[in-house]
């Protein structure tokens, strides 16, 4: 897997490169500004770009803008955005550029190497990796009378794991239940959200994210 990293903090950039290289991943370029990042992506056409949200010059949302632009130029590029804190508007901006091959994680998740690598691979393979924190915030923001509030606690858990991009088996393992139970929860969620039952991972993640987007726009 060929990777380009955009992170303005030198220590973090090198730490991440070190980690990924130790895992035999191919870090083809490390960059520290949106401009150098975009030219590195153009030059190397990597499989995945790992992008920090806050980069020079203003240290606000340059990373998001750069990620969206990179995806516009290279529609097949998988992007994993790392952020110091969760901000749904960032997530929404990203989601507007398509919901596949996309990840949005808190920076500190990188330290949980196994999960981080899993998320990286999932994104590279066309999936989605949304930080549980983002999902939790979206739930917290949803209005009491919204559809989301009709979900049971367990169903919410399943939905957030779905939003993170996990498959049925992975969800079952996380929650210590059987595949069948997960399947039942998902059907119930779809019913409550008024979505057609469908097991295919990308479709259902798309559906969930669309729904979360809607929930956020309204709430």
């Amino acid at each position, binding site marked *: 897997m060929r990777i380009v990293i955009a992170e303005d903090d030198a220590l*973090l950039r090198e*730490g991440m490169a070190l*980690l990924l290289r130790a*895992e035999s991943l191919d870090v083809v370029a490390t960059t520290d500004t949106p401009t150098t990042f975009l030219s590195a992506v153009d030059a190397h056409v990597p499989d995945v770009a790992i992008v920090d949200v806050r980069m020079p010059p203003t240290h606000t949302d340059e990373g998001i803008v750069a990620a969206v632009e990179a995806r516009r130029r290279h529609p097949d590029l998988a992007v994993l955005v790392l952020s110091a804190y969760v901000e749904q508007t960032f997530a929404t901006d990203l989601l507007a550029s398509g919901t596949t091959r996309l990840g949005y994680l808190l*920076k*500190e998740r990188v*330290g949980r*190497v196994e999960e981080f690598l899993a998320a990286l691979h999932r994104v590279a393979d066309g999936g989605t990796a949304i930080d549980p924190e983002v999902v939790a915030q979206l739930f917290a923001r949803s209005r009491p009378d919204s559809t989301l509030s009709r979900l049971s606690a367990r169903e919410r858990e399943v939905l957030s794991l779905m939003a993170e991009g996990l498959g049925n088996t992975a969800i079952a393992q996380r929650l210590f239940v059987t595949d069948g139970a997960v399947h039942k929860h998902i059907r119930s969620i779809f019913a409550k959200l008024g979505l057609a039952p469908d097991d295919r991972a990308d479709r259902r993640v798309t559906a969930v994210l669309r729904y979360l987007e809607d929930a956020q726009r309204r709430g």
Partner: protein
Amino acid sequence: MPRRDSVAGPVTVGSDRARAVRRRLRDRARTSVDAVEQLVGGLGTSLLSLAVFLLLLLVGLACLVGVGLWLVPSAAKAVRSAADRERARLSLARDLPAPPRVPGELRGVLRDPWTRREGAFVAVHATIGFGLGVLGLSLPISAVQYLLFPLYFWMLPPDEGGPGVVIWRIDGLPDALVVALLGVGWLAATVTLGPPMARLQALPGRRLLAPPRDVDTSLRIAELTATRAAALDAHAVELRRIERSLHDGAQNRLVAVTVLLGAARRAVVRDPAQAAEILDRAQQSAELALAELRAVVRGILPPVLDDRGLTGALDGLAVGCPVPCTVEVDVPGRCAASVEATAYFVVAEALTNVARHSGATTAAVTVHRRDDRLRLRVDDDGRGGADEGAGSGIGGIRRRVEAHDGRFTLTSPPGGPTTLLVELPCGS
């Protein structure tokens, strides 16, 4: 005690008295000359007022037949220029807010409190002010004319009489000396009447040209609103700065720690030597995080201010400044904590600028307290050209200072040197 004094020094007492009399005479002379000068100046502005007053009368007459209404705004502008001349003469403009622009149309002019008061001023100054000015000028001239009369009376035919009111025949020196005696009277009149006349002449200007009371408060309110907004702005900017330094500084270091720890954990089995190396880096990163947290805390409210006061805190800043820097602090007692903090940040920011942008070889910080004002001054011998817009933190200094109702001035011509002056009310 009185007895001993009278024995010990009659001579001293006498010469003291003489000195006192001399001093009083000198003061009198000076105030008289000042008064004449003021009256003459007032005469000048009253001539302008007179011209404008006549113009006003003409416009007023023209208004009776209707056409004058069109001329009112221009007349108001003429009134303003006459009033401004008097404002400048009385140095009224220095501390007080300037009047707003003259309204461009008739109704605005008639409603504007400034214009109305200026109109009243022009009327009074053109008449009474003019009269006082003429009188004030003629008194000393007459005094000189009369006093010198014995020196030149022989050049005039005796039937001509003397100067001014002296219409009788002048026969020889005794008569001329009588005229000179009258001159002494004129001189006395100049000395006694001059100062009150000057005050009287200036009175309408001081009363009518100062801002109307309600205007004054409204301006003050506007100013307070602005500084309050600036205070809130400064506060928000400050919070943003803290948020930045936490997210982009300490937090990044800690993330790096977790990343490196994660990497070390993965490496521990595969390659223990590499794991140790990675752990070493993780530890360094954690130490960096601690250092940055300390810096952030210092940026919020430096503990040193509490411990060692402004003097110690500023010394600390100077020591930490890469450019050699002297500090002179003369602040008896303590100021309010917020004022000390502001002073600290001003100096910190200024020295950061000196180190980063000025290319200076020396800098000097002086802090004095005069009455209720804390005066800060930061000089450097660098290349100057410091610019508020250039993201150099100068805007931040200004906001913080203005939030405290203080004053901020920056002189930084290209080529240097740069001087930053800040004055803060101590608030204690």
